[in-house]
């Protein structure tokens, strides 16, 4: 199953995600974020806006590749992939 790594800044709002290995079913970015949201309700409100679009100052990578579709989140995460969620430097 894919694993998820994220900036420790998000642990401030979702302490239940700290110090644990997060694995989710393989699927699209949208499905993976929804799976995290089930572990930590409200999580998607922090990384997506109310249109479901990745927030302007949030970056999301699959392995070493930045996701391409930030609007519909259709990029696929492979079974052995890792999703990285972190803040963009542009957010200051």
């Amino acid at each position, binding site marked *: 199953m894919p694993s998820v790594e994220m900036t420790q800044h998000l642990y401030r709002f979702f302490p239940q995600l700290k110090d644990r290995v997060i694995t989710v079913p393989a699927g699209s970015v949208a499905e993976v974020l929804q799976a995290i949201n089930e572990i930590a309700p409200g999580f998607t409100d*922090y990384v997506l*806006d109310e*249109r479901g679009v990745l927030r*302007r*100052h949030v970056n999301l990578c699959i392995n070493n590749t930045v996701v391409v579709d930030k609007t519909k989140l259709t990029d696929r995460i492979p079974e052995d992939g890792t999703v990285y969620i972190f803040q963009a430097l542009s*957010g200051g």
Partner: protein
Amino acid sequence: MSDMVVLGTRKGTIIFVRINARWQPRPIAHVGVPVCYAARDPRDGTLWASLDHGHWGPKLSRSRDDGKTWSDISSLKYPQGARYIVKYLPTPDFNPEAPSAQAEYADATVLKIWNIAFGNADQPNKLYAGTIPGGLFVSDDGGDSWELNRPLWNHDSRGGDLFAGDATTENHWNGTPASIDYGVFEPGIHSIITNPQDSNHLYVAVSTAGVIESTDGGKTWEGRNRGMLMDYLPNPESDWGHDPHFVTNCANQPNHLWQQNHCGVFYSDDSAQNWKKVSMPEVGVHFGFPIVADANDGKTAWVVPASADSERIAINGGLFVARTTDGGQSWQILRNGLPQENAYDIVLRHALDASGDYLCFGSSTGNVYLSEDRGETWQCLGNNLPPVYSVRFG
């Protein structure tokens, strides 16, 4: 008079309380997070903060135990189908009265929750929030859920009902520079004025459009900009395009309203049916951001003037507050206890408040001053605070 003052700052929420005649700070809350507005609901003591996360989106935060614990609320969202007409920074030959070209539309998302206001005592769970890009949100359950006020969002001054289709009227709402941080040039609601004597009577002030009134609880809205003057437009008396920096009223004489506008200080004693310019540039009263009215005397108000408008610093390096007690016919300059040399402070639109004889303001350079005698003398509460965005007595 309140013995609590709540500050929203660039680095968190800071509360001062008056204990044994001394104002003392509590430990900072929301440490490191920009808080663009913070206030205490006088009806039940709930504390509110508007978090302006750079990365994670705007959120409200609420404390029901006097600040011991806070919980974030993500339920303030634009509904599906909420759109607005995109605006761009004006060019040098910009004419706001000229018909715009083909309208361009964008889906609305909350960029900033700029202002929070509380309903009257007979509406115990009603709250209001003003946002960029220009939506008024209302909660009837103490902030658990929020709903966009559609009559204002769909107002004719803004292109009509864009849920239903494309614009049917000309859009007169222009952007505020405060939105540029979010990568857009869109309007924002920074002032929500309730009438303590009539729960159906509301005003909002929009940068940049003007003042809009509802007398039926938000079902219908009408512009209230008669008498306003814009120095920078071809037609200074245009119905729309005004840039109120902050608008407020007198709690016990709510037909008296005060407006610190980009183009001066304005006053109305007839429920905003007519505004009158009461600036007095010769004594320094003209440009600024915040304004506060006395709770009992509608003719009394305070401002913190600044050097207009390309500099935006204290005038001649000396910080002062100006007070009128006669509806703006004359102004007293109050400097006792405030720095008079090398002061470059600017006081932002929500960063001045009054409670009885108490006044307090904070500056973008992290200085906070408080008066217990209506501005005659001032004490400093701190010189090394983060930039102050809002000051509200609890």
